[in-house]
């Protein structure tokens, strides 16, 4: 690991000043991705600004939204009373991710910014990785690939965004709160991430030196039913092959509001709006769910190792729509 300076400033302004947009400086929160990738030689910051004790922890419910401080841990958010009562899809996505130890360390802000698990990105001995070394190619497209994305990708990069909770949060139209040298701003999570088709090394709209301070999660209308289904190689402590976050408001057998996020398939936490459009105003039946699932994966781009994900993602979504809607036929 490259040597680095470690600083722990007081307050958000102090942290922003200590970072100051310096290319070789990185923020450190839970560290579960940051430190891991530093050990692998993928990230080599010369200075770490430890933000983990800044006053950005805990959540408050105000009106129709839950406001979550960026340093709230995954465990803390999973056991939040509002999350338990109003946001089952968020709770389930959190509890199906990582392990308790990692969830006690990992923060919500850090979770949103986690780097891909693509094995070629994480191995500096692999020369071709457009995300790690722009313009060098993509070893995953030609080499063995499996835990890779099929939506929002191209021959330049098929790296997956592996977060579970971000999938639920894009479905709910969560908003990211940001502070930086230029002041504060808010960005909808659906506009925060950038697909890997263009420049794979640019993953989101956060500027270097800006800090996520919180996430605002709009609460779905009372009566909404929701949940998260994660399909994986082993039953626990594993990344998703495919997953589906679903929130449905159904009245008299008709879908009044449908929100969907798909995991394990996208270069970003994936919001299949075409599938939501199929469901909206339609009867909650298996036939409609299947039609929505077809729309969700339309335009998938696969390599031989990821072809199976198209049908698996369809079935994952149909299953979760049926579970949430309680359609058992």
């Amino acid at each position, binding site marked *: *690991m490259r*040597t*680095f*300076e*470690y600083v*722990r400033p007081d307050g958000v302004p102090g942290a922003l000043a200590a970072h100051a947009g310096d290319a070789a400086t990185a923020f*450190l929160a839970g*560290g*579960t991705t940051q*430190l*891991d990738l530093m*050990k*692998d030689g993928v990230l080599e910051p010369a200075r*770490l600004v*430890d933000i*983990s004790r800044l006053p950005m922890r805990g959540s408050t419910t105000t009106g129709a939204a839950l406001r979550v401080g960026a340093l709230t841990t995954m*465990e803390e958010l999973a056991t939040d009373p509002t999350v338990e009562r109003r946001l089952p899809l968020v709770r389930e996505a959190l509890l199906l991710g*990582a*392990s*308790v*130890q*990692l969830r*006690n*360390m990992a923060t919500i802000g850090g979770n949103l910014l986690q780097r891909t698990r693509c094995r070629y990105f994480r191995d500096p001995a692999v020369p071709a990785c457009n995300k790690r070394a722009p313009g060098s190619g993509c070893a995953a497209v030609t080499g063995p690939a499996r835990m890779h994305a099929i939506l929002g990708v191209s021959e330049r990069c098929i790296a997956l965004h592996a977060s579970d909770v971000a999938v639920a949060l894009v479905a709910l139209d969560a908003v990211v709160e940001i502070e930086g040298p230029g002041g504060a701003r808010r960005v909808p999570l659906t506009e925060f991430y950038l697909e890997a088709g263009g420049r794979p090394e640019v993953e989101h709209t956060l500027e270097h030196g800006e800090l996520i301070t919180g996430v605002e999660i709009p609460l779905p209308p009372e009566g909404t039913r929701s949940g998260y289904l994660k399909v994986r190689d082993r039953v*626990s*402590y594993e990344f998703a092959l495919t997953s589906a976050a679903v929130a449905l408001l159904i009245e008299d057998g008709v879908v009044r509001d449908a929100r969907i996020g798909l995991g394990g398939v996208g270069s970003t936490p994936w919001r299949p709006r075409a599938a939501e459009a199929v469901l909206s105003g339609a009867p909650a039946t298996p036939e409609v769910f299947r039609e929505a699932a077809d729309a969700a994966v339309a335009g998938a781009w696969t390599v031989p190792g990821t072809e199976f994900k198209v049908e698996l993602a369809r079935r994952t979504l149909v299953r979760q729509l049926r579970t949430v809607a309680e359609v058992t036929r």
Partner: protein
Amino acid sequence: MTSTPDVPPAPPQSDPGAAEITTAFTVNGTPRTVGADTRVTLLDALRDRLGLTGTKKGCDQGACGACTVHVDGRRVLACLMLAAQCDGREVTTIEGLSREGRPHPMQDAFVRHDGFQCGYCTPGQIMSAVALLREGRAGTDEDIREFMSGNLCRCAAYPNVVAAIKDVAREGGDHAHL
């Protein structure tokens, strides 16, 4: 056979240009100070600087759970935490579980139920299990398996690990004093 004196090994030579940092924290109830390269993880500080080798280094990348310790009462992975991040924190390791020379009830239960084979993952399993009880998640076998899933055992002693935890949970867990 003579016993080995309990002296920590000499710290490794630091790289030229490495940044040093002093960290003061509490380990198993005792205030400790470690001066080390900023790159030193909590795991390496415990093992190589403080001589507390009960905490094991398995994968060193947050995948196996062998290095599980408690920081401020929560179970975490010592391999993915810098020692410097623990300044002012309270750290508990497997060496800190016993009271008045008696093993922790969870340690007793692991022995009673043969909850290990090679034993390398055991300190992490026990630290995780003690936290699991405190979190109130030992209600069913299914819950125990799910909330212990961050601790891998390549000898696959899992059934006996679950039995040991159930045993302590059944006893009320009150005397599981951490």
